[in-house]
């Protein structure tokens, strides 16, 4: 009897408080809307065309690309006042062979002006070791290592006459989350305050990113395909991740 009275006394203000909060929300009209992110795949300023076009790395070696896929996840938006919104369950796989994967739609975003965007190039630590996943993280996407649990964050396959591998192949499967070979990198960019990402109920802005596949092979370490043409995790993957950490993505413009 006593206990339940205490409980009641304890619960009452909570009920009261939550009802207050509800009211507040209604007053400030906490609305949500949508925006899109578009990833335009390029190689050093030229459009990325799979299988046919020839590109050059920083060492002047020719190469072609057959596969180019990467994860963008845990997208965070920040406002000028410092508030941060992490978009829940934001896991996307961009695949240069699937044009509809190059534009992603983010729903249920609190309206407002955002001045910074940040995301993981790859997949966070926990999901690498989690149980069976779906959608972008479905192992059928060919981005999951079955012998060494974890996702391939960036997958690049192609050819180069300089490659000493069979059929001149280039195989760059970048992933791994354990030190010293952790390849999780984050990309973050400030947005010009004069033209922030304006999310409104009647406006669905579009952020346009340029993605440079050439960034895997330059930036910190210029890679020669005669010495590095194969990596599936490990120290060489770290070299590639350190290269693309800064150069892979660039925010080009925003259509508000």
């Amino acid at each position: 009897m006593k206990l339940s009275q205490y409980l009641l006394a304890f619960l009452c203000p909570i009920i009261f408080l939550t009802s207050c909060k509800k009211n507040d929300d209604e007053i400030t009209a906490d609305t949500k809307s949508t925006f899109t992110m578009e990833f335009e795949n390029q190689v050093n300023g030229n459009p990325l065309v799979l299988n046919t076009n020839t590109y050059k790395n920083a060492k002047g070696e020719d190469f072609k690309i057959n596969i180019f896929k990467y994860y963008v996840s845990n997208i965070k938006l920040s406002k000028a006042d410092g508030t941060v919104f992490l978009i829940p369950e934001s896991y996307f796989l961009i695949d240069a062979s699937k044009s509809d994967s190059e534009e992603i739609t983010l729903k249920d975003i609190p309206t407002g002006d955002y001045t910074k965007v940040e995301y993981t190039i790859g997949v966070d630590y926990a999901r690498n070791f989690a149980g069976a996943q779906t959608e972008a993280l479905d192992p059928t996407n060919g981005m999951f290592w079955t012998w060494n649990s974890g996702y391939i964050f960036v997958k690049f396959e192609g050819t180069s006459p300089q490659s000493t591998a069979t059929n001149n192949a280039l195989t760059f499967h970048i992933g791994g989350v354990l030190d010293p070979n952790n390849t999780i990198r984050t990309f973050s960019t400030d947005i010009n305050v004069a033209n922030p990402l304006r999310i409104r109920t009647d406006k669905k802005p579009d952020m346009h990113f340029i993605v440079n596949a050439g960034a895997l092979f330059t930036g910190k370490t210029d890679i020669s395909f005669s010495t590095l043409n194969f990596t599936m995790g490990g120290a060489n993957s770290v070299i590639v991740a350190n290269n693309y950490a800064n150069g892979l993505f660039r925010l080009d413009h925003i259509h508000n």
Partner: protein
Amino acid sequence: MLFLSIALMYACSKNEDKIVPEELKITFSVPSNFPSPAYNFEDNKLTNAGFTLGKKLFYEARLSADKSVSCGSCHQQFAGFTQLDHRVSHGVNNCQGKRNTPPLFNLAWQKAFFWDGGVKNIETSPLNAITDACEMGTDIETIVAFLKNTAPYPNLFNEAFGSSEINTQRVLKSITQFTAVLVSGNSKYDKVMRKESGATFSSVELAGYNLFKEKCSSCHTEPFFTDFSYRNNGLDLVSADEGRSHITGVSTDFGKFRVPTLRNIEYTSPYMHDGRFYSLDEVLEHYNSSVKAAPNLDVRLKNGIKLNDAEREQIKAFLKTLTDNEFIKNTLYSEA
């Protein structure tokens, strides 16, 4: 009249259910001498329908490339869910894998899988077997497509997950409802430990247990008879299989393998990661006289483990108390 008979049949089947409710309800039970498990079905609610589907998939040979190999071909119940008499696994097109098939039980307590610990979640551990050219030689898209078009699978998925949608996640989660439920904790050893119904070791078994605690249990730690660490026990001067370093990239892990469980060891021959030994006598002779000075040999083994004939018999007698016939013969886990 028709209605009546249906109603009657219904009543009858109801009654039948009630007669054997214990056998029908699939549960995951933690033996009282075990710690709490790492996998607890939180995101994969255990149900009879989920288990039934998982078991059917486990024994479904049509999932493999040449329709000849199921999980159960390599993981055989009578051998503690390893592959009897095969040094290394034997998959589609008579292909020989590179490693000995590990037994499957008490997996819910494991935090890493495979001999080198490369796989980190029980749910994703079948993927390698499915896609390996030498095991089932297929891919999960093909499996999902097959299941979508093959009765009674859509119905079974509906019963297990509430809709007949079939995808990778559901396939893997239902298989896990089978594999994670496999608990072996009713050996004579367990009953002695739990002081159950007067179970006691014979004097030879007890002598073996004491020797075991002195010489083996620093690695083969109770109650799982492994501490789940990766070690080198001196099989070769230079291991042909990289082992743990394949995953960590660290040279001091070269030639190290997960300490295997010794539960049901009587039935899981051949032994070691490459299945090189067929008998426990060979294993004990290895520890006694053939431990090689591999660069990463575990310090505890640098002088081997000397065992005279009487001691070997005692250790073997003890190891046989780890046999759990209730598990090996449990028809709940058998191919229907």
